[in-house]
């Protein structure tokens, strides 16, 4: 099985640069704005889109993404509507990979089998479900692989050598390396430690390794992109959206543009990564 994710990473490898993976919360601050943001991402330089699925109790997320989820839910977002976003996006873009990211309960309530069919049909390529470790693979990971979707696992600084094979087993698409022990939006960890961890994981897998949590600037993207196959930026984008809203949390004329501007800046970071490494 080859997904859009596999195709994208293969072409970036040929191009000799890391991927820019961008996260935003589906439905934040409203459906139409969120779709406009999503459509603007590839043109601004995003290679892979992580589409956040809103959940009332995001235990692994910091305040920025918690608030984004609350804004989205308040505006009527649901898992059904998040799949609508993917479907609407796919009408104009059939190559940019879409990875859904969130928590298990909305999927469990939607019904795993029906969810996988609908997600595939909507043009989704992969899933990141924070609260499903390898021990719970029967729940969603294995059915997802059977349905032709990548199940992207998080590896963390606590994933030691003994545990790493279990984490990599059944992982496909790419490996998401969480740069620190903590929640989304915290300060970036020591980048030399991140590099050592990425190199360690690379000894165990041929899958691309993307690094996220704490990546906020083009400079972060450039430095981490020297050894990682991709960098993930989430909270910085979600914060940019929040900053652009009016006092009632409604989108303004500036919302989509300001996100696109930020992503263009991050894109220069990943594009400079290997040039710098080559020097």
């Amino acid at each position, binding site marked *: 099985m080859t997904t859009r994710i596999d195709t994208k990473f293969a072409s970036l490898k040929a191009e000799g640069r890391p991927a820019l993976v961008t996260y935003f919360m589906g439905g934040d601050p409203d459906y139409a704005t969120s779709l406009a943001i999503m459509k603007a991402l590839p043109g601004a330089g995003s290679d892979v889109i992580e589409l956040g699925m*809103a959940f009332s*109790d995001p*235990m692994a997320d910091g305040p920025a993404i918690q608030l984004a989820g609350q804004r989205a*839910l308040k505006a009527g977002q649901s898992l059904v509507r998040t799949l609508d976003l993917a479907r609407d996006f796919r009408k104009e873009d059939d190559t940019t990979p879409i990875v859904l990211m969130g928590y298990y309960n*909305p999927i469990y309530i939607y019904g795993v089998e029906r969810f996988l069919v609908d997600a595939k049909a909507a043009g989704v390529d992969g899933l990141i479900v924070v*609260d*499903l*470790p390898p021990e719970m693979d029967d729940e969603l990971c294995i059915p997802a692989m059977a349905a032709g979707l990548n199940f992207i696992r998080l590896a963390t600084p606590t994933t030691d050598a003994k545990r790493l094979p279990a984490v990599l087993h059944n992982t496909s698409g790419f490996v998401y390396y969480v740069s620190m*022990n903590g929640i989304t939006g915290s300060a970036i960890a020591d980048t030399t430690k991140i590099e050592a961890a990425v190199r360690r994981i690379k000894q165990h897998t041929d899958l691309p390794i993307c690094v996220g949590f704490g990546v906020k600037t083009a400079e972060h993207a450039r430095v981490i992109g020297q050894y990682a196959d991709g960098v993930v930026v989430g909270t910085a984008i979600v914060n940019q959206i929040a900053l652009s809203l009016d006092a009632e949390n409604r989108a303004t004329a500036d919302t989509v543009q300001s996100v696109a501007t930020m992503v263009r800046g991050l894109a220069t970071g990943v594009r400079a990564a290997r040039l710098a490494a080559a020097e």
Partner: protein
Amino acid sequence: MKTTGMQQPGVYDVDQPTQPNSYRTGPDEQGMFGIYGGRFVAETLMPLILELEAEWEKAKSDPAFKAELENLNTHYTGRPSPLYFAERLTEHLGGAKVYFKRDELNHTGSHKINNCLGQILLAKRMGKTRIIAETGAGQHGVASATVAARFGFPCEVYMGATDVERQAPNVFRMKLLGAKVNPVTAGHGTLKDAMNEALRDWVTNVDDTYYLIGTAAGPHPYPEMVREFQSVIGRETREQMLATEGRLPDMLVAAVGGGSNAIGLFHPFLDDPTVRMVGVEAGGKGLDGEEHCASLTSGSPGVLHGNRTYLLQDGDGQIKEGHSISAGLDYPGIGPEHSWLKDSGRVEYVPILDTEALEAFQLLTRIEGIIPALEPSHALAEVIKRAPKMGKDQIIVMNLCGRGDKDIFTVGKILGVEL
């Protein structure tokens, strides 16, 4: 439905041969009680939970661990707690004899200390240097702060901002004990939000921090571990009842929020088919609306806070906030073993309204001279309904799991008394 190593029992009925061999064998090696329980946590926490499980397995069979815990239970907590025959209440209700298991007399005023002592000993064994806890009513927060003080650990307690306000005496108690209380403003500012925030702390401080969960819920091995520490309630009750009445009780009644005091009382009796069991949920302002916490009566299975269990949630899997007059029952979930016991039919779960709990609170105060916490006041309201319908030769044991000193401000406010 996934099959597990555990038997899936049929509907519980003494006349039917469909019962499992035992209701006391769970969880299985994956931490499942039937389809409930499990380990639904972020990867960062997984190695920690496995380490905790390994240490717990070792401690369970270590006589030194058992001896240290028993010594603390006796000399620090004041166990065994009495089994008290409530003579005047029994007379008043005119039916079954009512006994109270008086865990409200424990040091710190509730059953929560039973679990905290067990877990702090584990934290010590694991070489952890910092304790975090979540709390609703503040009873678990106080018990956590107490054992942290006793064993010299720094302690931070996460507590919903709403609860900080309605349980002010316990907040002050925690501070006196040297704990830092972190108010959580997300959501409705209640127990669910406090637990989210405690999990965020834990994932950030995995190296040195022990998360002292207060109820028989969360990822495996917490539900089993907390149950084992709380089962001292049921084991003592069994011995005391046999000594006093020469037989087992006909019915056990306990309040369920997360469900730790109830599972502690019930578990040692689960394989005694003549003992009926009733768990009492917070019916809040009624099950017709949204303002209740009756997750077993009107919720559905879902995944939250590390386990699959009955939850109050909407059609999109978003968790509802719930409501209860009692901060300790104000949680939209329930320990996974209770979910399994509900489905199996072994335990009956019923809701009690805020108003019924409040009446029971006042009745017990006047008739027995015991001020109960609002949590066991829910159990008491169910006893008040059931005892008159039972014969005078029958026996009910209710877990009086907490004292009401902390609630006098809440009750005073509702009764229109300025304190």
